[in-house]
């Protein structure tokens, strides 16, 4: 099984987001970087499939040179090779991102490395466009399904399951080659081992310069939503507060008095 996984480097924001003074970006000076949990599950899934069935896996990102970190994180848990579509840090819109990924897949496949399966996150953690995977699949003429939380690959078919709108699960079966966008909960990703990290450090990263275009949506600026502005009422300290808490539960009507 030959698998490609697409991941996007995003800041690991914690309790609050601060923006740069021009309101164009998140101020990332004091932040680490990560990928979406959905994409972490895509990476883990690829590693498991290759462990069980053989083949190989590649991870791809379109981002600044520093995004090499996210590629090495993926290789540290067992992805075989990495491709960086290196940008100058500008934001690529979903059409440009998909086009760059499609061009890379075509080039790789023409050079004798076809992919049975291309995995995406359901949506990027930051921009949340909900579309790059579908755009790539449509351009390549491959079947695609999104929101997948369980995946089985057997006899050239991807059997997939996602939450149904009315509860329970709905199932799909896609002949390979196919494109699948996944959600967190698909599996429980492992943590990288020290030897895994060392191995990943020594691996080559293939670099490609992606074409730039801008169709939209075109960002004018970012802003924080209006605060709900609640003032916290401290009920007390330690277990002595229990009686006040129970009074509150009664007052809120969640406990019969």
């Amino acid at each position, binding site marked *: 099984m030959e698998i490609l996984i697409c991941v996007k480097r995003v800041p690991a924001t914690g*309790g609050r987001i601060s923006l740069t003074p021009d309101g164009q970006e998140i101020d990332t000076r004091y932040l680490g970087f990560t990928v979406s949990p959905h994409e972490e599950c895509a990476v883990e899934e690829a590693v498991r499939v290759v462990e069980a069935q053989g083949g190989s896996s590649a991870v791809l990102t379109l981002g600044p040179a520093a995004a090499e970190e996210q590629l090495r994180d993926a290789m540290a848990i067992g992805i075989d090779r990495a491709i960086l579509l290196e940008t100058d840090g500008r934001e690529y819109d979903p059409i440009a991102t998909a086009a760059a990924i499609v061009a890379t897949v075509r080039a790789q496949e023409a050079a004798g490395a076809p992919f049975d399966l291309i995995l995406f996150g359901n949506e990027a953690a930051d921009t949340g466009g909900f579309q790059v995977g579908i755009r790539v699949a449509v351009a390549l003429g491959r*079947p695609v399904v999104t929101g997948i939380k369980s995946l089985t690959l057997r006899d050239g078919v991807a059997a997939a399951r996602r939450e149904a709108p009315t509860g329970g699960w709905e199932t799909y079966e896609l002949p390979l080659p196919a494109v699948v966008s996944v959600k967190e909960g698909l599996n429980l990703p492992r943590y990288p081992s020290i030897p895994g990290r060392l191995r990943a450090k020594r691996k080559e990263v293939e670099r490609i310069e992606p074409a730039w275009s801008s169709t939209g949506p075109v960002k004018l600026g970012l802003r924080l939503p209006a605060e709900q502005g609640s003032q916290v009422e401290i009920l007390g300290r330690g277990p002595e507060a229990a009686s006040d*808490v129970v009074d509150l539960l009664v007052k809120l009507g969640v406990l019969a008095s």
Partner: protein
Amino acid sequence: MSGVLVFVEHAGGEIERVSREALTLGASLAAATGGPLEAMLIGPGADRTAAALGSGVSTAHVVSDDRLHAYAPAAWAGAIVQLIETRPPAAVLAGGSDRGNEVLAHVAARTARPMAANVVSVSVGDPWRLTRQRWAGSLLEDATLDADVRLLTVAPHVVPVPEPEVDAAGSTRPTIAQSQPAVHEPDLVARVIGHEAPEAGTISLTDARVVVGGGRGVGSGEGFATLEELAGLLGGAVGGSRVVTSAGWRPHSDQIGQTGLRIAPELYVACGISGAIQHIVGCKAAKRILAINTDPDAPIMGVADYAVIGDLHQVVPAISAEIRRRAASRG
């Protein structure tokens, strides 16, 4: 070009709430373009449901083709593409749900148009300006969308939906137009082929009146026993942060937040949870939040209504004991 087409999701004769939200925003945009509000419904019951749409919708396009009965995103998008090719509206809207985002992204990909997901407001002009959610709504983006047909999904829980009008005499019903799109076999490859029932026996976190959430502060899977006990006394459910699901202390189906569930209980009790923005987007719809945390400066205090500063391993059992004591003294 004028008018707006809304892709309406429905089940059992009911219109999904996300689609009502899209219809509400769609109505105001249609008016701003000086064109009609139209709807597209696909699948079993489409006819019946279309007839129940409010009078704001001038035409409901209904697809009853058997081959499109099972949800098939590419084929359903194909039906929309064929409709808008003949008479392009100024915009196509869908709810910001799994299916709404998926179908519209297919429409966008096939017609090489941009798409904006999870918009919260739109202003019709040249070009159209919109505000959309990033980071699941923790951050807003103002943007322009320059296209002949604007493809937009509407962020859930943002647009207030007016009460459905009473069926007064004289209120008009939409014209039902049977739509018969060509169906291409390759578009049916990815389609729903079966259903599985939900795992039984759990109080759904999204329906619970009280949710007791645990974070890293709980310390272990076993540590959740006291949270389970409190939730049980309150008839509620237990959830958690991503730290506890990643550690395997709880299943991912218990995770609240950006890549988990959105909950809206009467009361959310956040125990040993710091209040990262990705967690808060999942619980901010709770009526009240009570935080139990050793750190009075934790970000959760910025969104909580009430707090107890202290070790949850002492505070939570003390609350359960007090509930039991009062129940016993009442006899």
